């Protein structure tokens, strides 16, 4: 048991070192890209708690990101709040929304829950348009450009990077703590068999709703950071496909390992933003002829990869890594 803890601490330490050192070795623009990967990572950690641990599927987490992003936008534009202070508020508002969603979600499971959450993802973008007078409607809101506070001498991109990853690492630690203690075990019990869990005296509804709330909180923070990074929100900033991308990222990465979540986040970001590079690579495959200028490549690629992953790597990249490293780590665990 102790060896496992040591291993996890080691991987976390490695991550911290990497996070601190990377910006010095990549270009300014790449720091921004890595910052965006960090935002997806935060959202995926939250979604991993919900889907991977409490077993509830959600195809609507883009809506929680949107709630977070819009909270930041409204606070910043209409009330002049400084961007960093809006982040925790955005998370809390999104978390509250998640709790609200979690309540009716108790009555649904499996495909019904998936479809209702998809419905949320589709219907939600309409709300900012209706309440346009304080959300900016379709035109959206233009926020202030990100800038390091306290007169720190960093570029906006580096500032974004460190802000995002500092928050990501903090939230990762919190998630880790949650999952290793009672809530985590309870969620796993609920996921494995709800009836058995209820029979053992676990307050199943409370924990399931809590899972929704927490994952929404994470998504809200990610959404808020998105808004700060792009300095712009409108309903299209959080489209329906975002919710789908998140689920695909989770599936590809695998919900239960750090490396998997990182891989998932990187996958979502790079496929979405470097679709042309992907198309050019795909063009080299036999029997495949793809025009890199064509639009819609990310969606097609996501679909293809999702199918492949479900067929070949059901536990995702993280699961694959676990399997690969098992000969090494099993020796460590043999005592426990």
């Amino acid at each position: 048991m102790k060896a496992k803890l040591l291993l996890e601490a080691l991987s976390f330490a490695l991550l911290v070192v990497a996070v601190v050192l990377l910006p010095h070795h990549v270009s300014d623009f790449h720091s921004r890209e890595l910052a965006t990967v960090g935002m997806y990572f935060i959202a995926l950690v939250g979604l991993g708690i919900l889907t991977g641990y409490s077993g509830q599927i959600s195809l609507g987490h883009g809506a929680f990101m949107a709630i977070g992003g819009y909270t930041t936008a409204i606070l910043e534009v209409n009330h002049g709040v400084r961007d960093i202070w809006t982040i925790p508020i955005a998370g809390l508002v999104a978390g509250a929304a998640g709790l609200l969603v979690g309540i009716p979600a108790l009555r649904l499971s499996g495909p019904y829950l998936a479809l209702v959450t998809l419905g949320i993802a589709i219907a939600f973008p309409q709300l900012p348009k209706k309440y346009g007078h304080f959300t900016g409607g379709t035109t959206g809101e233009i926020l202030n450009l990100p800038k390091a506070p306290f007169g720190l001498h960093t570029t906006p991109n580096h500032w974004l990077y460190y802000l995002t990853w500092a928050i990501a690492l903090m939230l990762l630690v919190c998630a880790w703590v949650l999952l290793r203690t009672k809530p985590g075990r309870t969620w796993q019990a609920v996921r494995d068999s709800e009836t058995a869990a209820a029979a053992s005296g676990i307050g199943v509804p409370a924990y399931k709703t809590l899972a929704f709330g927490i994952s929404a909180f994470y998504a809200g923070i990610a959404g808020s950071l998105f808004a700060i990074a792009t300095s712009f929100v409108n309903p299209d900033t959080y489209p329906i496909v975002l919710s789908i991308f998140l689920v695909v990222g989770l599936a590809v990465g695998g919900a239960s390992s750090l490396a998997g979540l990182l891989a998932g986040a990187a996958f979502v970001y790079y496929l979405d933003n470097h679709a042309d590079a992907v198309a050019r690579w795909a063009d080299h495959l036999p029997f495949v002829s793809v025009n890199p200028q064509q639009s819609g490549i990310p969606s097609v690629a996501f679909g293809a990869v999702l199918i492949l992953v479900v067929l070949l790597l059901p536990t995702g990249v993280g699961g694959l890594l676990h399997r690969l490293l098992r000969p090494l780590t099993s020796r460590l665990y043999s005592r426990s």
Partner: protein
Amino acid sequence: MRRRVVLACLVIAAVCAAAAAARPLANPGVSSTEIDLGSSVPLSGEAAAAGSVARGADAYFKYVNAHGGVFGRKISFTYLDDGYDPGRAVTNTIRLVQQNQVFAMFAPLGTDNNLAIRKFLNQQGVPQLFVNSGATTFGRDYKQYPWTIGYIPPYSEEGKIYAKYILQQFKRPKIAVLYQNDDYGQDLLNGLRKGLGKKASAIVAKVGYDPTTTDVQPLITQLKASKANILCIFAFGKFSLQAFFGVSGAGWHPQIFVNDVSAASSLMVIPPKSATKGAISIVFGKDPAAPIWANDKGIKLFQSILAKYGSGLTPGASKDGYYTAGMAEAFTMVDTLRKAGKSLTRAGVMRAATHLNEKNNPFVLPGIVVHTTPTFRYPITQVKLQRWTNGAWHPFGKLVSQPPG
């Protein structure tokens, strides 16, 4: 476990400790052999037809490169797809400026898109040249955004021109307006109102729609109920098409004024003839599908450039007004680069762009002067009215202009 929390706090401290100031290049995007320009246009989605302006411009730049370039420098034009989404326009712009290190943004398309990227570009001191939007703010707010300049006739002017024409031609005008509920549509509507002046009550009905609506035809039925004899379609792309379908479906025959950005011949041929016949719009460029320019030197040049240097062309490109508009803008861009001189800087190119007096653009109507001063940033304000008859646009009358401000 406490160790992990402490570790996390150390990371936050690392935020304060880690500082790496990356200094931008002194003159990015310009080398002795190359000038890098960037743009963000819709190449997919419902506004994809308008993205052809970038393709037209690209063909023209290649033509210029083949003939010596600008002071020996070749123009390298990178245009990214934003699907008409301002959020993606922002990420494209950031990428073009910070990763591709472009010298300037040239003709990005879309009112909301350009509004979204304007702050960033001005903060970074990157020229936002010849914006593909007629929103009056791009020419008017130069004090706040000195690196931005528009190009196409401002929408408020277009609305005014329609208003003046209506007052001339109609004794008892009753105007219904369908407008897109954003800066673009509202700019047109306000121009119309201003142009009508005291007679603004002639607008008997107006309906705004959200750009993500699926269908505006029911709104046309609503407008017909107002018994107006004039309909203004201040709508974009597919909505303009739906409006025409709605008009023919409702059996209504008002005099239609359609916003010039949606009036490309390729779009006008789609709805039933009964709806589009007699529709009026304005035009500043030579529409390659209009019979009047069939033997025009400028249009012949346009078609030969497209044939030789065009890439990724959509079907019917040689008759597509969006391509010509793009080439017109590219012509002005090259003109500006030449004016900015051999030692090309961003400040220099802005100076050149605000001192234009271009009379020989072969892709705009004869007689139009592309004219700017540091305090008058509306390059094109002269237009002609045109009427759609027999499946083509026919410009009529003299050049008119109602410049804002």
